[in-house]
């Protein structure tokens, strides 16, 4: 089989599985919502169908058995239970495993699949167990086509019940073909005196949109063909791109033979709504009006849905590494463009070159924004993965915890989202294990039995703020302090602010957990989180109130590839500072430096701002200029200055990593190539401030 197709199938199946997990978790919360059961069923059905089509017979056969159970759930014959959700989640994991295994060319352990399937089979009532036959062979009789809408009038023979045929089963089969509106016609149902209770007096109008063609519909009725009246009429071929509009009610009723043209004309003369008129005049049963109105609504909806679908069809799937390569190339281009602009500036007499350089600058800017935007993804997919994590872990620990999310639509660069996954897992695990208390403890503390973890994302300038908030016990100030003293992180009797105490949890190997659980307590976690955030150029902030909970805020730059920055000069070297941090730049004369008596403090309006003399920190040779500049940055809710020789100006910084040799260099987090080909180092504000704090503490 063509690898390309197999890969596409696997990609799509993984998306379907994510959707399935979402739907299952939602179904667990709201077991009465049949819409969700339908969603689960449809997803299973899609995986089964496309699995069979692409030769993944194991996936198709497995899913088929699960689907059999969901068919009963959908018909209200089986309830949605915790057991069903657990099994279904396990089934979802097995399907994922089958996909992974086939991709890596290894076999899955059949016993595990069998165990899950046995669980499903046990749920089936005795009479249905044989039904779980393997699915049809690959793509049997499927003709993929344009979805068209059909009107089906199905009037089973009165004796249908006695023959053991369940018309509902047929209606359900129709539902599997596509979006379906079913209206039962009750006009023939007699009152109890004349009713033959064993005779079917109901008949149905069904409006169905499917891409399988009219034959597939007739196939559904193949076994009852002789015992029913069946008309299948194509009412919308799906090709006509008429926007959301559809036939008028009168036209539908005449087409169906429910009313004649003359009756319509007569009714319309009365200038009221046709449906009401027809019912009032007694020429039409209200069921027929309802049915016609539903047809109108169904087709309109299908046509409206087709509009955005036409747009979706114009999107394509691109391998992520191709996008990464594109962004890298754009990065190179930005660098070359900076060089071109510099050359053009040097040759001032060459007006034409200057104008070309300007044009290139504008285009490069647009290209850069576009390329970066392509890689932006909503963070919601990551959030929904955590629903499962919270569910599984909390039940393992005997806690009842709900996960609420907001801001799922917030977009972040794809690579940033990928790197955020692990830190978020650590933080959420910590919240579940240490944060949220056991139900009885919560009740004793007068809190609701169920704990809540809220995961939120919001844009803030060129960063995204991600908050993880729990309503648990909060961090234990004393325990952290005691542990920090024991580990000699702080001296005895040190007076620390809340913030300083909370920051101790990021020390490597720090854990106050009395016992090691499978979830946490091994002391790996928060320092890993901190490292990951550093790598993302992000910051982490902890707020905690005893008894009320903890809120951890991660501030992450939107993208890792290119940032707006401020270019500064110290001696012959140039450095860049992320522009998002910069508040203002202030001149500092020699006299002012002398007046501060060696304390690195600067009076800015009515406040004193400490600054770091970068020239002496980096040991730059030579004398500073008579007037230096202080770049004041806003960092962790305070202002801090960086003393440099000169501020050059704004710069588009394409971030390059330093390479393994220089990873340990303190105070710089990366490098960028300037227009003239020189390298400028990117200052790591966080590390510089921490190093200075350590120095002062000594």
């Amino acid at each position, binding site marked *: 089989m063509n690898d390309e197709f197999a890969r596409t199938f696997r990609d799509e199946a993984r998306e379907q599985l994510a959707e399935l997990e979402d739907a299952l978790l939602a179904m667990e919360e709201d077991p*009465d919502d*049949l819409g969700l059961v339908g969603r689960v069923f449809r997803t299973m059905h899609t995986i089964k169908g496309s699995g069979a089509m692409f030769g993944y017979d194991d996936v198709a056969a497995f899913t088929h058995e699960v689907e059999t159970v969901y068919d009963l759930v*959908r*018909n*209200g014959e089986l*309830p949605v239970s915790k057991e069903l959700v657990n099994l279904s989640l396990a089934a979802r994991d097995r399907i994922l495993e089958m996909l992974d295994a086939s991709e890596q060319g290894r076999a899955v352990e059949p016993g595990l699949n069998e165990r899950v399937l046995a669980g499903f089979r046990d749920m089936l009532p005795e009479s249905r167990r044989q039904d779980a036959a393997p699915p049809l062979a690959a793509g049997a009789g499927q003709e993929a086509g344009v979805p068209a809408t059909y009107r089906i009038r199905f009037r089973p023979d009165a004796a249908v*019940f*006695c023959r053991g045929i*369940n*018309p*509902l089963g047929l*209606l*359900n089969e129709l*539902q599997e073909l596509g979006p379906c*509106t*079913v*209206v*039962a016609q*009750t*006009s023939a*149902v*007699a*009152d*109890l*005196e004349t*009713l033959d*209770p*064993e005779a*079917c*007096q*109901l008949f*149905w*109008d*069904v409006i169905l949109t499917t891409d399988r063609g009219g034959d597939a519909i007739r196939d559904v009725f193949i076994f009852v063909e002789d015992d029913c009246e069946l008309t299948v009429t194509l009412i919308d071929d799906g090709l006509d791109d008429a926007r959301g509009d559809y036939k008028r009610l009168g036209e539908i009723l005449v087409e169906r033979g429910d009313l004649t043209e003359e009756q319509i004309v007569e009714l319309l003369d009365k200038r009221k709504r046709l449906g009401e008129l027809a*019912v009032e005049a*007694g020429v039409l*049963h*209200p*069921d027929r*009006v*309802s049915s016609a109105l539903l047809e109108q609504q169904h087709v309109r909806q299908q046509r409206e849905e087709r509009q955005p679908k036409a747009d979706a069809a114009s999107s394509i799937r691109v391998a992520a590494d191709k996008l990464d390569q594109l962004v890298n190339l754009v990065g190179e281009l930005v660098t070359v463009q900076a060089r071109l602009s510099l050359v053009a500036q040097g040759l001032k007499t060459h007006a034409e070159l200057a104008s070309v350089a300007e044009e290139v600058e504008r285009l490069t800017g647009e290209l850069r924004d576009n390329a970066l935007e392509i890689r932006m993804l909503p963070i919601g997919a990551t959030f929904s993965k955590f629903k499962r994590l919270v569910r599984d872990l909390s039940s393992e620990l005997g806690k009842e915890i709900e996960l609420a999310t907001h801001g799922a639509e917030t977009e972040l660069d794809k690579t940033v989202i990928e790197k955020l996954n692990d830190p978020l897992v650590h933080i959420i695990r910590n919240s579940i294990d240490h944060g949220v208390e056991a139900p009885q403890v919560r009740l004793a503390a007068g809190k609701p039995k169920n704990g809540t973890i809220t995961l939120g994302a919001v844009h803030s300038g060129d960063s995204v703020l991600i908050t993880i908030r729990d309503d648990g016990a909060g961090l234990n100030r004393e325990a952290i302090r005691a542990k920090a003293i024991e580990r000699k992180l702080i001296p005895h009797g040190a007076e620390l602010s809340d913030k300083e105490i909370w920051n101790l949890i990021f020390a490597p190997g720090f854990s106050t957990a009395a016992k090691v659980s499978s979830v946490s307590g091994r002391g790996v976690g928060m320092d890993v989180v901190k490292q990951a955030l550093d790598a993302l150029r992000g910051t982490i902030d902890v707020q905690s109130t005893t008894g009320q909970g903890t809120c951890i805020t991660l501030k992450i730059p939107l993208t890792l590839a290119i940032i707006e920055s401020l270019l500064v000069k110290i001696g012959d070297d140039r450095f860049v500072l992320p522009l998002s941090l910069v508040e203002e730049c202030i001149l500092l004369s020699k006299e002012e430096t002398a007046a501060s008596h060696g304390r690195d403090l600067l009076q800015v309006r009515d406040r004193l701002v400490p600054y770091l003399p970068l020239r002496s920190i980096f040991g730059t040779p030579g004398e500073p200029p008579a007037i230096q500049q202080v770049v004041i940055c806003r960092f962790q809710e305070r202002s801090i200055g960086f003393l440099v020789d000169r501020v050059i100006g704004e710069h588009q910084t394409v971030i390059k990593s330093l390479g393994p040799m220089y990873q340990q260099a303190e105070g710089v987090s990366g490098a960028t190539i300037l227009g003239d080909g020189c390298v400028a180092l990117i200052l790591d504000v966080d590390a510089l401030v921490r190093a200075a704090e350590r120095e002062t503490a000594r």
Partner: protein
Amino acid sequence: MDGTTIRIVDGGAATVVAIEGAMSIEHAGEIRDGLLQAFGAGKRVELSLAEVTEVDLSGLQLLCSAHRTSLARHLGFRVTGEENGRFAAMARAAGLPRHVGCPGDQFGTCVWKRKQ
């Protein structure tokens, strides 16, 4: 399913019918008879479905028929306990819920009318 019982109790202003067990084709005859007997009392009929364990199309059809009977006899008719998930799911799958009742439904007591 065996053991479907139909209890008919004189509830003062109304005759109360409670069905316990399956409302399926096997019991359709007895349920019809029970309902007819209830309407025979000439009072409003209240039908409780809270104890119904299973329902099929014939059962749903009986509800419709009972409602028609109530209209023909000008007696009130009310169904309770149908919010039991099973009924809602079945009725929805069968395409029964609607916005307007049948022509005789002058009191708006149609069993399938959506509760808004």
